[in-house]
């Protein structure tokens, strides 16, 4: 699946997107965040406890308990500040 990042999440991770395959026991968005955090300090910094990061699956907002099975694109970004 494709992961895409925006705003300070993108800056902290150091890239705008990447292709990845998570292990089978990574079932939800929350699991995915936990797995990503162990990949390196840039992910740890982006998803650190206390940093509020929102997620979308295939361009729809989701909560951390959302299942990622079948997802083509998962996005992570800060709370929105448009308008």
């Amino acid at each position, binding site marked *: 699946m494709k992961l895409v990042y925006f705003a300070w999440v993108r800056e902290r991770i150091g890239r705008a997107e990447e292709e990845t395959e998570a292990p089978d026991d990574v079932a939800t968005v929350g699991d995915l965040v936990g797995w990503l955090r162990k990949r390196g300090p840039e992910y740890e910094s982006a998803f650190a406890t206390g940093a509020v990061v929102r997620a979308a699956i295939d361009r729809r907002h989701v909560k951390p308990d959302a299942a990622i099975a079948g997802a083509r694109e998962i996005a992570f970004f800060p709370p*929105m500040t448009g308008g």
Partner: protein
Amino acid sequence: MAVRLQREPFDLGAEVARLTEGRSDTGAVVTFSGLCRDRADSGARLVSLTLEHYPGMAEEELSRIEAEARSRWPIVDALVLHRYGRILPGEPIVLVVTLSPHRAAAFEAAQFLMDYLKTSAPFWKSEETDEGEAWVASKSTDDAAADRWRS
């Protein structure tokens, strides 16, 4: 009904004229436009704003918000226009226009569209000041404004 994303500034008068031309079912037009202030949230003088967005999802989310407004109020047409890229103080950022037979629906739908857009449309502002660049933090007052439509 339309949503539009563009880099360029917009002309409020021209957008309203386009929406109302040839219509005789509309008794009320409400417009809201958000402009770029010359002060950052920190109080520092703002040089520019840069709006980042999630291409694809931004359009889809604005369309979902607009569909929700249409299901709640008898609006005959609406426009949600949001800019992205670099924006200078005094320039417009966002435009919401609602048309309805009577004013109450047009006022309420416009406020709803803005309140929801603020918290769920995937846009992020970065402020450039004399002190450097910084991402704008989200405001709890914006969450509260959106929440009151959920009851």
